[in-house]
């Protein structure tokens, strides 16, 4: 063990003291338990992730926040415009609120419908019913497909009959629906059932397709969790006279708490970062606006409104932080 100058390696001892190792407090003349090699290694192991985290995640995030107060177009000198982008977004840009509404509906439909459906399927499939593997494969297939393929499949199904969409061609071809009344699944931007607060009709179609995929995803995650639940717990519950429903809600579900957290976080993230499907359908126009596509269309397309796009990105970040932070703090607190 050699005495070395720790000036350049300052983080290492601190991290170690944090980890509970007893180290002398005086910096300049002490004997370290670590060799120089250990210290270099530790510095690298802590420093590199820290660097990546600070620079690549928080650094770029802060740059985006800063850019959101400019009208930068990617080339010309950066010009500060204060809160202009935000005031325009909130008061002037007609597609912003449509996007916020659609993102919230995405979240609502995933939390209220797709995720519970996935959990239900997982519970049903966990009961060792015959052909369980077949059902599992069927429900999981949409998850394996890339969203580009999912978009293509559903466009073939849901195009208007003039575009030879399967469902509409069938409806009109069999005379069930008059051609003029055939639903325009991905084109009709009017509100569902004419009620303004509901998503547009084509957004509802998108939500249906997105759920079709999300259900399988949640099912597999949850099924994996269920397999790890100790069978003796169920047996004990059964001996105590609990029925299936009681067993699930009072025994299995609480035991699954860590998985449940994952499921909620995954659901929130999936619904807020929703992008691919609407982008494949029509680039997020005409009722299919999402915050993510607004960012892409304004900042990363032929239009280079980087300042304006950054402002939308900042709002998406805030929207994403609220449910995640709220949920995680609640979970952490109960665990303490």
């Amino acid at each position, binding site marked *: 063990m050699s005495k070395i100058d720790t000036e350049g390696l300052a983080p290492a001892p601190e991290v170690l003291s944090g980890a509970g190792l007893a180290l002398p407090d005086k910096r300049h003349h002490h004997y370290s338990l670590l060799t120089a090699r250990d210290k270099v290694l530790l510095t690298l192991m802590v420093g590199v992730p820290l660097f990546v985290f600070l620079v690549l995640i928080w650094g770029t995030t802060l740059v985006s926040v800063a850019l959101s107060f400019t009208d930068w177009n990617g080339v010309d000198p950066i010009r500060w415009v204060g809160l202009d982008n935000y005031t*325009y977004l909130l008061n002037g840009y007609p597609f912003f609120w449509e996007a916020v509404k659609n993102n919230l509906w995405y979240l609502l439909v995933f939390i209220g419908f797709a995720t519970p459906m996935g959990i239900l399927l997982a519970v049903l499939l966990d009961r060792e019913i015959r052909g369980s593997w077949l059902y599992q494969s069927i429900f999981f297939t949409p998850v394996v497909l890339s969203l580009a393929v999912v978009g293509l499949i559903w466009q073939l199904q849901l195009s*208007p009959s003039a575009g030879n969409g399967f469902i509409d061609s069938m409806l009109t071809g069999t005379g069930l629906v008059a051609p003029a009344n055939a639903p325009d699944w991905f084109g009709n931007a009017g509100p569902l059932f004419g009620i303004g607060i509901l998503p547009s009709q*084509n957004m509802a179609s998108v939500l249906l397709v997105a759920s079709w995929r999300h259900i399988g995803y949640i099912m597999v995650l949850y099924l994996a969790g269920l397999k790890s639940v100790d069978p003796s717990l169920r047996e004990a519950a059964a001996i105590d006279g609990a029925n299936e429903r009681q067993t699930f809600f009072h025994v299995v579900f609480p035991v699954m708490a860590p998985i449940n957290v994952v499921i909620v976080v995954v659901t929130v993230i999936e619904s807020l970062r929703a992008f691919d499907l609407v982008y494949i359908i*029509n*680039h997020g*126009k005409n009722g299919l*606006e999402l915050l993510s596509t607004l960012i892409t*269309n304004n900042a990363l*397309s032929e*239009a280079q409104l980087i300042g304006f796009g950054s402002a939308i990105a900042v709002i998406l970040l805030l929207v994403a932080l609220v449910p995640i932070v709220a949920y995680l703090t609640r979970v952490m607190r109960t665990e303490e």
Partner: protein
Amino acid sequence: MADIETGLKGQVSRREVLKKGLVGAAGLTVLPTVLAACSSAASTPSATPTAAPTPTPGAATPTPAAGTPTPVALTGALHVGSNHSDPSEKKGMDAIDAAFQAATGLAVTLNTVDHNTFQDQINNYLNTTPDDVFTWFSGFRMRFFASKSLGTAIDDVWAGVKSNYTAGFTTAVTGDDGKVYGIPVDYYPWCVFYRKSVFSDKGYTVPSTWTDFIALCNKMKTDGLTPIAFADKDGWPAMGTFDILNLRINGYDFHVGLMTGKQKWTDPKVTAVFTQWKQLIPFYTAGFAGLTWQQACDTLVQKKSGMFLLGLFLTGEFDTADPSGAAKKDLDFFPFPFLGNQYDAEKSLDAPIDIWMMSAKSQNLQADLANAKAYLKFWAAGSTQVLMYKANNGFIPTASDADTTQYDVLTQKAVQIVSAAQKITQFLDRDTRPDFAGANGMQSFLLNFLSNPGQDLTKFQQSIQDFWDKLPAYTG
């Protein structure tokens, strides 16, 4: 007078093309300046009213400087970025690259990207790893990227091939800094397409006035046809209708002013355009917001719809949908009906020019520079452009020495209509700034109007103007 043109830089380039003509012809027909030379073999030099050398097709043969590729063997590589993703256009590209290889011994590396994707990613593409040369559009859209130093000036190439173009083309490919950034290779008009057999079977006549047009639509509707095929899933096709209505109702000068921000979207003249447009919407294909133009075009191939306002490139879809060619022989078109006002005389229409550009940030460009220039020069020859024309009749050659005897009836008519027009525009998304015309800009605004035409237009137009006002200042 030439300083009028240069003074107008930053404006729609085709306007300058036109003005060039106007200067010479004292207010007479303009496009002939640009196109007459390829319109008919009978055109004489005196019909082209500019001082610039304008070889007629007959005279083109003895000027091989531009017309024939230099028979020099090239070595190295050349990376070519193309948005010609439709099957017919891809065939044309292959034929041209094969011809280039035959002439120079150089096999180019062709990178074909879906047409719409190419446009969406153009910024990223030009800023990161572009090919040496790439397909693009003239007008504001070229100058915008040239002004961002994403294109390489090719004045030397242009100097060598210029004699193969009518004078007006120079302004169409000149950037804000006065340098040349593109080689024009084709153009196509936007007209109303229809099937001759449908019109003759049902006894329809080509409408030339708005009243006739609406009456015809009503008649078609009772006959069980979709009167007007329409599709706007991609967002840009609706711009064609806005352009022509604005040109017909408010005239060329107002339209150009609106595109360049000199006129306001809140102007009652714009209200008039949307109000007029409302009359057409009931005649459109059901579900148009979820259809691509190709799908709408197929309804015309199947004779399920009566008319379709689109660019001449629509013939490519006819080739794909009916390879026998029977449907295309039955295809015809007419200029959008006139409204009976002072702007009728302008006979204006959209007739965009496509160009080839040289990128600035290609890693290979320095090594490939000579090859890139040879390729651009090759494209400036009529013989090259005709190869693309043969693959897809929607692309009319721009070079003066193009062999016009290859043109089919439709093309001859298209050349005629464009030549007869006093005023020509490029297309909304080429005449205005790209950040205004984008997917969540003008494309979304027009879709918003189309899906809810009954909305408060004052509020709607204000939201368009607000969006324009919000855009960063353009420093060309």
